[in-house]
C-alpha cells in the first residue's frame, strides 16, 4: 500500500481531508512520499540501522572495509535474517518456533553422520538434512495444530529433545566438515575462501526477496495474514488454518536446517554449541524490531531483514570501536529496548495520524 498516486486513482469519494489543501504538485508529492514512508512499519528500524551504520562508518575507519562488511553481513546478519524469515511468517499466523535454533544445530551433524558413517554422497546428505528441517517443522505443526499445544510450549519441548539428541550423538564435541562436502559448502558460505565470503548474505537477500513476494503477493501470504488476523474469520471463509500453520512451521524448519549447514560451512566446523536459543532469539528480536506483531496478523519480511541488519551492525560496530564483550551486552540490551520503544511510540503516532 505504498504508492499513493495509484491510490488516488481509484477514489470512491475524495480522500478524507480533501486534496485541495496541499501546496503545489511537487511539494505535495514530496510530503505525501515522506508520509507514506514513515507510515511503513519498517521505517523506524531502517532509520535506526542507517544512523548506526553512518555513525560507525565515520567513527572508525575499520568498519566500512571489505573484510568487516563480509563478516558483518555473511557471518552475523545472514543467519539471523534467514531464521527471521521463518519467525516472521509464524508470528504473523499467530505461532512461534523456539526450536529453530536447535534444528540449526542438528542439521549439520546429521549431514556429518550420513557422510561419515553411512557413506552418503555430500549432496544427498545435505538434501536429507534439509528434509530433516522440514520434518521438525512438521512435528511442531502436529503438536501445535493437531494436538493443540501452545506453540511456545510445543517448540520448547522439541528444542530440548533436539539439543539432547545433538549432545548425545556428538558427545558434545565439535567435528570438522567432511572433506567431500567442502566443495559444495562454498556455495552456502565460506569465511576463508574470500570470493565465497559473500555467498551467505547473497542467499539471505535472495530468500528475503522470494519470501517477501510470497507474503505480499501470493495466496499463501494473504492467508497467513488472515489466519493470524482473524482465525475464526479465516476458517469461516474456508481457509485451511491447519495447512497454513503446518506449512509455515515447515518453512521455518527448512530455513533453520539451511542456516545450520551454512554456518557450519562458513566456520568450517560443526559445533554442538552453535545455533541454539541465542540464534532463535536474535531471529525473533529481528522480526519484532522490524515491526512484526507478537500477537499475529501483521509483519513484513523486509522488516525482519532490517531488524537482523540492525542487530548485526550493533554487534559488529560496538566491537570494532573497542567496547569489550561483557559490557557490550548492556548496550545491546538497551539498544533493543530503545529501538523497540521508538517502534511502538511511532506506531501509536501512525495510528493517531490515520483518518
Amino acid at each position, binding site marked *: 500500500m505504498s504508492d499513493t498516486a495509484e*491510490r488516488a486513482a*481509484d477514489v*470512491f469519494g475524495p480522500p478524507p481531508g480533501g486534496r485541495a489543501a496541499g501546496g503545489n504538485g511537487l511539494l505535495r508529492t514530496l510530503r505525501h512520499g515522506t508520509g507514506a514512508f514513515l507510515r511503513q512499519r519498517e521505517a523506524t528500524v531502517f532509520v535506526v540501522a542507517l544512523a548506526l551504520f553512518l555513525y560507525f562508518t565515520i567513527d572508525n575507519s575499520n568498519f566500512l572495509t571489505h573484510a568487516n562488511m563480509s563478516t558483518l553481513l555473511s557471518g552475523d546478519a545472514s543467519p539471523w535474517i534467514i531464521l527471521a524469515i521463518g519467525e516472521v511468517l509464524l508470528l504473523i499466523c499467530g505461532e512461534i518456533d523456539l526450536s529453530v535454533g536447535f534444528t540449526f544445530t542438528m542439521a549439520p551433524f546429521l549431514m556429518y553422520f550420513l557422510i561419515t558413517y553411512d557413506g552418503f554422497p555430500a549432496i544427498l546428505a545435505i538434501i536429507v538434512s534439509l528434509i530433516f528441517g522440514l520434518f521438525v517443522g512438521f512435528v511442531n505443526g502436529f503438536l501445535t495444530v493437531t494436538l493443540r499445544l501452545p506453540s511456545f510450549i510445543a517448540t520448547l519441548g522439541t528444542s530440548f529433545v533436539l539439543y539432547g539428541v545433538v549432545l548425545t550423538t556428538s558427545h558434545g564435541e565439535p567435528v570438522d566438515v567432511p572433506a567431500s562436502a567442502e566443495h559444495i559448502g562454498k556455495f552456502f558460505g565460506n569465511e576463508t575462501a574470500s570470493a565465497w565470503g559473500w555467498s551467505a548474505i547473497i542467499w539471505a537477500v535472495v530468500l528475503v526477496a522470494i519470501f517477501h513476494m510470497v507474503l505480499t503477493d501470493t*495466496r499463501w501470504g494473504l492467508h497467513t495474514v488472515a489466519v493470524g488476523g482473524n482465525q*475464526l474469520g479465516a476458517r*469461516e471463509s474456508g*481457509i485451511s488454518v491447519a495447512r497454513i500453520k503446518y506449512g509455515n512451521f515447515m518453512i521455518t524448519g527448512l530455513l533453520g536446517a539451511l542456516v545450520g549447514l551454512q554456518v557450519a560451512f562458513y566456520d568450517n566446523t560443526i559445533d554442538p554449541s552453535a545455533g541454539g536459543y541465542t540464534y532463535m532469539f536474535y531471529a525473533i528480536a529481528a522480526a519484532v524490531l522490524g515491526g512484526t506483531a507478537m500477537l499475529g496478523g501483521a509483519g513484513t519480511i523486509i522488516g525482519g531483514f532490517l531488524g537482523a541488519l540492525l542487530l548485526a551492525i550493533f554487534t559488529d560496530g560496538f566491537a570494532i570501536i573497542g567496547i569489550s564483550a561483557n559490557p557490550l551486552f548492556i548496550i545491546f540490551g538497551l539498544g533493543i529496548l530503545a529501538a523497540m520503544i521508538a517502534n511502538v511510540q511511532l506506531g501509536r503516532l501512525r495510528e493517531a495520524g490515520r483518518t
Partner: protein
Amino acid sequence: MTTAPEGQAASASAGGEVLRVEHISKRYGAVTALTDINMHLIHGEVLGLIGDNGAGKSTLLKILCGFQPPTTGHIFLEGEEITLKSVDQARSLGIDAVYQDLALVNQLSVYHNMFLNREKVRWPLLNNRSMRAEAAKRLDDMGIQIPSVRAEVAQLSGGQRQAIAVARSVYSNAKILLLDEPLAAMGVKEGAIILDLVRQLKQNTNVSIIIIAHNYGQVLEVCDRVNLIQGGKITLDKASSETSAQELTDLVVAEYRRALEERQRSA
C-alpha cells in the same frame, strides 16, 4: 399459528418460495430453545425475524446457516428438502450468514477481504489489479461508499465493515442472506448505510434476505414482512405495512407481563 393472508398474497406475486421451514424444534438437553417453527421466505423478499433476547432467534439462525442441526423438522430450499450438515455446505447451497464481527480480517485491505479465499490469481502471484477493479465496481454498484478499496478494514467504520461483509456474501452468489443483528451497536448514520444497502440489494439483485433483530423500529422500514418469534414459536406473520413497531412492542410487553405474573404466582 397466526398468518396474514393478505401479506402472503402480496408477496407471492413477487415470485415463488425460496425457503420453507416446517415444524423445526431444537432441544439442548432439558432446555427447549425452539418448540415449533414454521416459516417461509419468498424469492427476493426481505423478511424481518424479530424477537426478544432468548426467544430463539440465534438458535434458528444457527440451524438455517448449517452450524447445528434441528432436533426435528424439515427445511426446503426451492421446493426440495435439504439437510444442512455444515456452514460450508449451506454456503455452497447459497445460504450465507453475515455476522457482526466474525467475518473480516482487519489487517487486510477491503479488496483482499472481499476476495478472501476466492482470490484471483495469475500464478503464482495474486492478480491484485483485477481484484481491486472488480471490488471497486461491485461496491460502487451496491452504492457502498468507502475511501478506497485499498484501505485496511481496520480503518473503516462499523457500518462500512458490515456493508463489506454483506457485499462479500452477495458476491459469492448467495441466494439467501441471513443478517444477524446488522444494526446492533450502530448509530443512526451507520445503520442507515446498512438499511440503504438492503434496499439496493432488493432492487438490483435476486437475493432473498432474512434480517434478525430485536430492535424493530428501523428494521420495519426495509422489510416486506415481519415474523415475531416468542418462546420458540412464530407468533405473528404480517406484511410490514400491516403492522407497526407499536404492535410488536405491545406483543412483547404482554409476554413480559405473563412471565412476571407467573413468577409472582410461583413465588
